[in-house]
């Protein structure tokens, strides 16, 4: 609107915009109050945990808090040669406090992760301090260096200095099979010890193939659902939705019964003579099991968005395509298929994102070669109790999902998604 336009007034002489705002205000407050519980719930269950995960994943304050005097003294140290007397003195004072609180074990473990061999020399130092073998009146540097030769090795002091910052990206690097080398640069883990990268790639691969399988199987089903007369399509719909109403665990367990070596499927193969009885193929505890079970479980997530889109496509469009001279294939490919793309997009995105973080099914039927990154996250949460590493990997997974979403938005456009 141009500035010359006269302000519109209501009959009472109040500016129209002001009056409108006043009239709408009450409704707006009401609407906000109605959604407020949900916003609060989302914040508590979603935003807050993710923030918590993030701080946990980069948190490295333990040693920072344990060795305050050491790090203060280390600020002046260039880190190239053995540190000066003040660093040793600071370290001695910090360590004495730790010994008094019986916390030196934690320090040893944490430093041992940074550099092997710390645990034993920390214990040795502890014993010397407990026996009051250290004379505080003469050079502490000399005395500590005498306790073990590793204290004379500059690499160990460099390792302590590396733990000084309260935050670290080390967990993220570990998730990608990388680590901070002694000189602080980023290095690759030896080839035979790289496990995470394989897991990431396998997760992506399985999610991608499960999505493709779901699409190939779900598209015809959805089409059938959308075109069959009501009484048949309802029955088919129940068949599609039935897995939804069954516990995930029960479904996975039934796949175990079907797929195991002495299972129903193998028995059938042997019966029809497809495979020899003593040479039954392994269909479980490997990728095959994961593929089969996950495709079946995620299929409804593909079928439902496709169905809801296909339902809105008028059958006369295909007829028009045919009557205008297109073969059934051309009519399908040029007319029907492009109109189902929003459904394909929604279904694929849904299945892919669900598959990338799938947990129970691969844990039960996946075996060693069929487990995914989420199983590894669970392993670190429950077995090694390395929660910060689990958090880091969880966030990497979340970032991965967001990247997929971003790529999808660039390719198809999120506005084109139709979930039904």
């Amino acid at each position: 609107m141009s500035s010359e336009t006269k302000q519109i007034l209501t009959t009472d002489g109040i500016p129209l915009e002001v009056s409108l705002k006043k009239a709408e205000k009450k409704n707006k407050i009401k609407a906000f109050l109605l959604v407020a519980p949900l916003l609060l719930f989302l914040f508590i269950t979603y935003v807050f945990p993710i923030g918590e995960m993030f701080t946990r994943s980069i948190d490295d304050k333990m040693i920072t808090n344990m060795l305050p005097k050491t790090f203060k003294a280390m600020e002046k140290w260039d880190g190239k040669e053995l540190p000066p007397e003040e660093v040793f003195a600071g370290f001695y004072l910090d360590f004495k406090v730790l010994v008094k609180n019986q916390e030196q074990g934690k320090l040893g473990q944490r430093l041992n992760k940074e550099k092997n061999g710390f645990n034993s020399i920390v214990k040795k130092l502890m014993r010397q301090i407990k026996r009051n073998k250290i004379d505080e009146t003469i050079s502490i540097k000399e005395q500590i260096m005498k306790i073990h030769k590793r204290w004379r090795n500059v690499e160990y002091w460099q390792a302590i200095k590396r733990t000084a910052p309260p935050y670290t990206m080390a967990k993220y690097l570990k998730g990608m099979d990388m680590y901070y080398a002694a000189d602080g640069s980023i290095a690759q883990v030896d080839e035979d010890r790289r496990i995470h990268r394989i897991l990431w790639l396998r997760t992506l691969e399985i999610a991608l193939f499960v999505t493709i399988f779901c699409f190939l199987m779900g598209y015809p089903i959805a089409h059938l659902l959308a075109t069959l007369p009501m009484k048949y399509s309802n029955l088919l719909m129940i068949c599609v939705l039935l897995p939804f109403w069954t516990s995930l665990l029960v479904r996975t367990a039934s796949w175990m019964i079907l797929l195991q070596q002495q299972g129903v499927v193998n028995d059938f193969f042997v019966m029809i003579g497809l495979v020899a009885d003593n040479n039954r193929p392994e269909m479980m505890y490997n990728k095959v099991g994961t593929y089969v079970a996950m495709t079946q479980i995620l299929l409804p997530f593909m079928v439902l968005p496709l169905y809801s889109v296909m339902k809105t496509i008028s059958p006369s469009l295909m007829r028009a395509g045919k009557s205008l001279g297109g073969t059934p294939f051309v009519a399908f490919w040029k007319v029907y298929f492009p109109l189902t793309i929003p459904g394909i997009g929604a279904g694929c995105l849904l299945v892919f994102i669900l598959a990338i973080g799938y947990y129970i099914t691969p844990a039960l039927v996946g075996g060693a070669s069929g487990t995914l990154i989420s199983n590894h996250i669970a392993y670190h949460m429950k077995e090694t109790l390395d929660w910060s590493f689990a958090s880091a990997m969880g966030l990497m997974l979340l970032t991965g999902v967001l990247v997929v979403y971003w790529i999808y938005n660039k390719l198809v456009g999120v506005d084109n998604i139709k979930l039904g």
Partner: protein
Amino acid sequence: MSKNPEFVKFDKVDKSYDGKVLVVKDLQLDIAEGEFITMLGPSGSGKTTCLMMLAGFETPTNGEILLDGNIISNIPPHKRGIGMVFQNYALFPHMTVYENLAFPLRVRKMEKDEIDKKVDKALSMVSLNGFETRMPGQLSGGQQQRVAVARALVFDPAVVLMDEPLGALDKNLRESMQYEIKHIHESIGVTVVYVTHDQSEALTMSNRIAVFNDGKVQQLSSPAELYEKPVNSFVAEFIGENNTFNGEVSDVSGDKCKVKLSNAEILSNAISVKSKGEKTTVSLRPERALIEPNEKMDNMFSGKIEEVIYHGDHTRVRVNLLGNPEFILKVPNSSSNLELKVSQEIKIGWNSYDARALDPK
């Protein structure tokens, strides 16, 4: 080029969907080349089924359909070369107007220049030049409808089928589109098979009308004949307005007959009555009965006015006449108008050659 009077031929066609009920019964219909033929009937009368069989989306249960002398029952729809305009236009929503029109030409592997030329010609035919890059969703209902017509004609089909194409338009637009389609038909001479349940649409546009009911063609004739000379009471009732008397034939002489009602006897044309004692329904168009006629008419009765409804150009008068309380009269609006009041007794007369004694209802 001599016109083939049997360009499209339905030969003893039956159609049933469930094996129990016949939707189309023994259809025998010839459509001449270049003709505009309308299939008219109430919903469920089988007219759309006939169209779908012609287009190839349904197969006849029995009998054959011939196009230009060739049996087409086994030819798939995309090889029939029949254009079709659908009820909801069926424009491809993800393609521009140009792409919609180019679709039938592209699948026929035409050159780009030729496609451009033909699309341009088709668009100018429906006066939509300059709309090539629009999407169907950006067009009004009437414009979409014209694109659909242009698309059905752009590949020069021998026959164009239209399935209630104007059903979704409002009244004024519908009327102007009726003329437009009629003019397009006249200018390019394509054979059109048109399906509608709107009788005024059928009467305005067609060369011939086939009235469908109950899976059968009730009457196939020109619009004028259909209105003036319905052959049975369904057609008389379905086309235009109609006054009826139910009675029994008391005498037949030549093409005239006497029909005995409960309290009087009327004279009428004998159409489907043969002998004395038959039950019959006599049909009479409202505009053929006059109030207080000056001339001598062979049917003259008096009745009581029940209702007077002013319609502008004419006034409708409902009269209780000879035991029929629904007898309608149309009185044209003229300066010498009669004073008509409810419960007034008036004289009403009509000629026996305007009344038709048909099959009983």
